[in-house]
């Protein structure tokens, strides 16, 4: 089997992993070495599915002793198996890196023989890169659940980011679909990495040259749509992970049926891409906009509104908060306005120091007035000629696609009959239909 065959098999097996970011570290090449990292990360290409390619994302091997029902690499699946040797993988990485194809390596693996052996193989490949090639580019490694903590420690000192996949959003689903894994076996390494990072931060204060442990932090991912958890449960779980384990990112992966199994959605069902999209929107609200999970959804509203994004949804349900005065509102208040994002909020703060802001000025700052105008005043005035009626406001908050789908799904309803506050109750099918162009 040559490198072409191996690369094909091991890329194919790794492609369902979501995380491909290279963010969180800033570093120049060491003298005599190669490779740098920038904290905002760099995407080097985009695949035809629109997902970013930042790292060489492959598995060390796709042989696996586990039999997780949702996974292409499960033991019982009849698929060709391959394994890179550590040196092959290191050489491939360096040669791709020199040509500016990638930012570095994202290494995961099926469990070959046992978790310790697998982890040792990964460490060897990364050691060759770091020590023999003096490679300072980005490396993201998966912690293999069940591997000895000494090995995880060693891996953590070599890489920038580590992740442990939480896989499914609840213990029950895990039991049904991944009988070889348990909540404990996943959370234990996550906790270990978190503790070591904490220690490392104190070490770095004391000794400037202490080796860095997982400097870009850890992330995780979970599959959405394979099991019955609601959006509310998933979002709460994500919030908990950010708080408890200080994760940098929680990734969501719309379940793509790869296997026919009575416990899973049928192979014909489409991946719930819109749901995934909404989860990411809500995730952004948690991380950058100061929202809490229970503001976005609550036990009475457990799923996202398919037609409008979570921020607009919150705004429409909290009209008592608006309108706010752009020239006086705090940064946090500005962030709550649909049509004002992190950057335009920052620009507003900067620009209003030099003089009062009016609507035409806001446009230059990047505010999406089409949305924002219903929620703000400038120097006490609302936008010229603006008539605030429910349906006009609602329509301007929906994307073209969502509007189209809405008309298509509710042919008997004319748009004027839309109401502000009741959620149109779409079927699961509607949900899937309205995702074109949304992601």
């Amino acid at each position: 089997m040559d490198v072409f065959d191996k690369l094909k098999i091991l890329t194919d097996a790794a492609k369902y992993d979501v995380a491909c970011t290279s963010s969180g570290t800033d570093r120049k090449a060491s003298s005599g070495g190669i490779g740098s990292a920038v904290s905002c990360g760099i995407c080097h290409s985009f695949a035809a599915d629109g997902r970013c390619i930042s790292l060489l994302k492959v598995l060390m091997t796709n042989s696996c002793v586990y039999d997780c029902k949702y996974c292409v690499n499960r033991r019982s699946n009849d698929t060709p198996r391959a394994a890179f040797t550590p040196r092959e993988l290191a050489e491939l990485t360096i040669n791709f890196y020199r040509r500016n194809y990638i930012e570095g390596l994202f290494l995961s693996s099926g469990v070959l023989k046992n978790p310790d052996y697998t982890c040792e193989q990964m460490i060897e490949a990364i050691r060759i890169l770091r020590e023999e090639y003096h490679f300072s580019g980005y490396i993201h490694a998966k912690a293999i659940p069940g591997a000895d903590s000494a090995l995880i420690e060693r891996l953590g000192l070599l890489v920038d980011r580590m992740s442990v996949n939480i896989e499914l959003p609840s213990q029950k689903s895990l039991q049904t679909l991944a009988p070889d894994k348990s909540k404990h076996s996943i959370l234990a390494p996550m906790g270990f990495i978190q503790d070591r990072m904490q220690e490392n931060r104190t070490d770095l204060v004391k000794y400037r040259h202490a080796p860095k442990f997982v400097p870009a932090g850890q992330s995780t991912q979970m599959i959405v749509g394979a099991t019955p958890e609601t959006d509310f449960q998933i979002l709460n779980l994500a919030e908990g992970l950010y708080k408890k384990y200080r994760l940098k990112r929680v990734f969501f992966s719309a379940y793509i049926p790869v296997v026919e199994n009575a416990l899973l959605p049928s192979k014909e069902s489409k991946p719930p891409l819109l749901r995934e999209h909404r989860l990411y929107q809500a995730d952004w609200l948690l991380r950058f906009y100061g929202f809490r999970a229970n503001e976005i959804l609550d036990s009475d509203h457990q799923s996202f509104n398919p037609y409008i994004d979570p921020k607009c949804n919150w705004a429409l349900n909290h009209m008592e908060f608006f309108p706010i005065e752009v020239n006086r509102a705090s940064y946090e208040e500005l962030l709550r306005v649909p049509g004002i994002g992190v950057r335009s909020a920052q620009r507003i703060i900067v620009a209003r120091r030099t003089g009062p802001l009016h609507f035409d000025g806001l446009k230059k700052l990047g505010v999406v007035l089409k949305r924002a105008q219903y929620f703000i005043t400038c120097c006490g005035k609302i936008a010229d000629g603006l008539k605030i009626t429910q349906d006009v406001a609602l329509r301007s908050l929906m994307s073209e696609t969502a509007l189209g789908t809405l008309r298509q799904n509710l042919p008997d309803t004319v748009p004027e009959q839309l109401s502000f506050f009741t959620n149109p109750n779409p079927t699961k099918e509607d949900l899937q239909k309205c995702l074109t162009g949304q992601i």
Partner: protein
Amino acid sequence: MPDGSNLIYQYDGSFEGLLCCVFESYEKKEIPLDIIVADTPQTTLLPIRDIVTDEEKARRVLVSIPKKMGKETLDFIRRAFLTCLPYKEKEILLFLRLGYRVGNSVLNLLTNDTVHTLTKAVKYLNNESNQFRQFIRFSIFQGAMVAEIEPNNFVLPLLVEHFRNRYPEEKFLIYDKSHGMALIYQPYHAEIVAIESLELPEPDEEEYYFQDLWRLFYNTIEVEGRHNPKCRMSHMPKRYWKYMTEFAPPRRKRPGMEPKYEPNPVLLSSSPARPDTPLLPDGQG
């Protein structure tokens, strides 16, 4: 404010030259209608004044900018000068006149028309240079790495630092086809020089080997169930595809190597056999 002049300034196209125009504008208490680069073919009946680049005058203006408006503003002006904004010289002059008046806060006047125009142009420049950090593809010829780009803005000066930090021990060349310039780096020295044209030899077997592996990886990593060409295009506009390894026709015929969707017409039409002549200036080969 002095105004009403129907005069046009003509300078040598250098940053120092532009600073001399600023000096002239203050000395003569006038604002020219436009500032143009010498020997651009143009027809105008308006009077043109040649502004001679004088190091002393340029230095005086250069020193005054950080003093009056802060270091960031000087960096901003230098960047604005690299952009492809039409009438950028006039806009920069207006910006500086505003800056001398209001001082440090000039960059915060985001709703002012001049500041807004320049901010937008600089943002475009920054975005474009970021995109080249992402999408530049090097090919390796006898140990030297070569890449071609066709940027709208003059991004080379913004790429130096990034690629120097990344490949300190390599020799590399980035050829900017639209401006006829090239960034040449040899450990540990970088310079930007004018180059008429660049012809590359046929890559060797090793180069093709890794290019093919990359194409295989690129085509395999897509999740077909999520195919979304629109999203790809918005992140990676088509004008970059021309020089990207991913979209070049494969060398070896193997399953999974051919571009899966809509092969790029630009590429298919522009792949004549390249002449086998070496090309890199002064011992780059």
